[in-house]
């Protein structure tokens, strides 16, 4: 079943000069059609300004289409009067952990979403407890969020989403500001949620390594969808990716470079082990 159905989506916005006169219309999303299967892990890549975030914001109706339709769990984002129910299904985690935390105690922060949804107190506690446990932050329940590391803060933000029991989590560069360990923590947590709870994940990132374990990789350029496939398929297209300001994981690029020099390596090598194995077979 498809949890997200996007049909011929167009998003335009107008630019104004200092006299508030309209200067031009910018088309940020240009005819995108895309279905996301429930329970899948999808990574969206694309250079700055390619339309990735704009696309993601359409899924939970933070932005509405200029043309075309976006359906989340069968609800049309344009027609729905129940924005709350719709957004409950798709939580969003942003880049800067510090901008997403509002309470002074971890558990209160996690409770904020479900509390606003009107979840009764007895159930609320249970939800907060489960959510914190899910992201491995139970020990910090009574702590102040501002003493946590970046990776821990992002996990709290994710717990806040989980407490609302979403079917889908949209993540807009959640690791951009984190150190290597924080990055690993967050990506691992998200993969676990996907595998164990079946939550659909849409992950926007500029770190190619984070796309390697996805079920599917989508690449955007100029508001259009230009590639769509498994990580292996997409990362085999090194030159095309470079042409649109992207790159591939380091090990993939190394294999590609060696292939150009005449070594008979397969396309789309994604991991260190795979590479070592392939090179050993040649040796």
């Amino acid at each position: 079943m498809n949890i997200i159905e996007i049909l011929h989506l167009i998003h335009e916005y107008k630019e104004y000069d200092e006299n508030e006169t309209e200067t031009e219309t910018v088309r940020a999303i240009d005819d995108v059609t895309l279905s996301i299967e429930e329970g899948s892990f999808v990574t969206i890549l694309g250079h700055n300004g390619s339309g990735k975030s704009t696309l993601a914001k359409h899924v939970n109706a933070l932005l509405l289409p200029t043309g075309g339709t976006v359906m989340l769990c069968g609800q049309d984002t344009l027609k729905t009067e129940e924005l709350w129910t719709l957004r409950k299904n798709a939580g969003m985690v942003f880049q800067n952990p510090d901008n997403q935390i509002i309470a002074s105690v971890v558990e209160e922060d996690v409770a904020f979403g479900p509390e606003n949804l009107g979840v009764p107190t007895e159930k609320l506690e249970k939800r907060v407890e489960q959510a914190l446990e899910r992201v491995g932050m139970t020990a910090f329940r009574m702590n102040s969020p501002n003493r946590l590391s970046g990776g821990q803060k992002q996990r709290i933000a994710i717990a806040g989403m989980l407490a609302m029991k979403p079917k889908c989590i949209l993540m807009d560069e959640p690791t951009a500001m984190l150190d290597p360990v924080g990055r690993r923590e967050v990506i691992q947590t998200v993969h676990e949620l996907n595998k164990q709870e079946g939550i659909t994940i849409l992950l926007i990132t500029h770190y190619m390594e984070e796309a390697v374990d996805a079920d599917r990789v989508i690449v955007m350029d100029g508001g259009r969808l230009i590639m769509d496939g498994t990580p292996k398929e997409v990362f085999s297209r090194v030159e095309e990716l470079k042409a649109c300001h992207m790159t591939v994981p380091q090990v993939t690029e190394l294999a590609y470079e060696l292939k150009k020099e005449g070594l008979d390596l397969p396309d789309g090598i994604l991991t260190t082990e795979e590479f070592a194995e392939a090179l050993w077979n040649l040796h």
Partner: protein
Amino acid sequence: MELTLKNVSFSYNPDAKEPKYAVKDVSFTIRDGEFCALIGHTGSGKSTLVQFLNGLMEPTSGEVLFNGENIFGKKYPLKTLRQKVGLVFQYPEHQLFEETILKDICFGPKNMGLPKEEQLTRARHAMELVGLPESYEEKSPFELSGGEKRRVAIAGVLAMSPECLILDEPTAGLDPAGRDDILGTVRELSDQEGIAVVLVSHSMEDVAVYAERLLVMNSGTLVYDDTPRNVFRHYKELEEIGLSAPQITYVAHALKEKGFDIDDSVMTIAEAKAEILRIFRERNS
């Protein structure tokens, strides 16, 4: 130029029986044209160190010396120091505010009290240094892409002619091409203009390519101060303190384990490529 931290420590409760330190007994010197990277997990003390370097924070003990002079000494002109040691904060594009790019970049020189002509000359030179075309002068900084905005912000600091440039994660949130662009520009500033650079980064891949010297912080202390190659030899220790080595270093170790006679200190794609080709060439000959 010589910027020195001499046994600096910082504590929020220095008078307590057992004070807790954010930075503890750190010493190093940065010289002209050096490209240093400062790495360490969140909360390791990097940001505190960086703020010592241009006098935004004063250590609770130890000295910060600029060309041998204590910057926290009486009557030391901290304002002039901050022009010479320029700090580019994280997400500097949030600090752009003028109507045009040229005006925004002139802000620093204007505050220095320089005559209008000199302000413009400096701003234009700074634009050239970061690769912003002349046609951008009258554009609004808000029309630009993320990478371009960041260039404007860096140009704003460069217009004050700093001798040392400190950049706090200048590539966070940029796409791969934007990352290479900004770091390439910074590298040129260091190579050609002789500006000393301190790059705070979370990307081991980037520091392996661009930095000549790596300063590694953990729990407030400086644990390594060496070339990236020598530091990344300790990849296991780095992992223990929340860091890692570039992916290529792991590739080299995996190949060595397989039985390849490879130099496992390689850390960039170019180095690994050359090394692997050498192995195959030797085998064939």
